[in-house]
């Protein structure tokens, strides 16, 4: 085996001259082009995600919903949630930026991979936080709607007409939880698909390097 590798080495070094030779102008043209690296894509996707959730937050909040919140007696809670949301948002903007700045090709392969996977972890934390806030809003709204909303009487009537009131509420709760679970699963699946494709090879390489340290 050693001989074969030595043979390979000799041949490898002999082939030096056979590689293509690019001219000054050809290389000069290349430095003007745009990168298509993984990091760039991860960064783009994280920004798109960021904008997506921010826009969703912004557009789902109108004057009517403010009035509704007041009549449902949940105005204080939702305002608190919104303030928390924006504080955390600012923290994430800072995190995204500092993570991205840390990525440097001149670092060792392992460190570079680790930094990229850190970016991914930040994005993932960000998404989970958004899902959490989303569910919290949903719960608060449901609470307001059931207690003070226009439909609350109808639902309460339906509950008493159903005969078994406890069973009705159990079914109601289960349906609600099922609805949330399906939404979460969809988001999770989409997310896995998106980053799974981009980072699969990287994760494998990183774990291979990490295995050595143990």
């Amino acid at each position, binding site marked *: 085996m050693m001989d074969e590798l030595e043979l390979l080495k000799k041949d490898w070094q002999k082939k030096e001259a056979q590689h293509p030779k690019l001219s000054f102008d050809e290389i000069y043209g290349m430095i003007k082009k745009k990168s298509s*690296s993984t990091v760039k894509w991860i960064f783009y996707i994280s920004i798109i995600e960021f904008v997506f959730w921010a826009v969703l937050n912004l557009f789902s909040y109108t004057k009517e919903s403010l009035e509704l919140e007041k009549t449902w007696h949940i105005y204080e809670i939702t305002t608190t949630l919104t303030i928390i949301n924006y504080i955390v948002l600012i923290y994430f903007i800072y995190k995204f930026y500092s993570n991205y700045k840390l990525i440097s090709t001149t670092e060792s392969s*392992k460190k570079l991979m680790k930094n990229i996977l850190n970016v991914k972890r930040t994005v993932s934390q960000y998404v989970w936080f958004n899902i959490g806030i989303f569910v919290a809003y949903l719960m608060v709204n449901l609470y307001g709607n059931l207690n003070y909303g226009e439909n609350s009487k109808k639902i309460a009537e339906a509950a008493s007409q159903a005969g078994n009131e406890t069973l009705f509420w159990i079914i109601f709760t289960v349906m609600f939880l099922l609805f949330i679970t399906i939404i979460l699963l969809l988001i999770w699946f989409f997310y896995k698909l998106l980053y799974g494709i981009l980072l699969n*090879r990287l994760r494998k*390489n990183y774990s291979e390097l990490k295995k050595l340290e143990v």
Partner: protein
Amino acid sequence: MNKELEHKFVTELENNQNIVHKVCSLYTTNREAHNDLFQEITIQLWKAYPKFRGDSKFSTWMYRVALNTAITLYRKSKKSIKTQDFDSVIYRIKTDEYDATEEKQLQLMYKAVRQLGDIDKALVFLYLEDKDYSEISETLGISEVNARVKMNRVKNKLRTILNP
């Protein structure tokens, strides 16, 4: 000022471009992918160049950025799976003393190296380039002892591929 930096960088890269070509030839299997990767490595080198202070040799610095790009940043296109034609063209030895068995052996070796994972390939590459373990460990981010252990494992892997 920027023009001056560009000129200096392109000249240095032009003189050392073989390093990039060699990395490309290991990590890609057709000319199109080779050029793609060369392009990406060039961009990454240029992006990192302002931070290059010259504490290491330009070539040493190039090895690291080129390998990091190939292992970590480069998104392989699916096209690069079709390998045969390019292999047989580029790896035909053009020596006067033509040795059929040696050529066959070499072709098998190159084929085996291509089957290795990204990290293993990097190790073989640095070995073929006659780099010592301290440079290998620095490039990959593992200790020298681990680089040695890993290299031995790669040799074993190659042996298994060659003699199934």
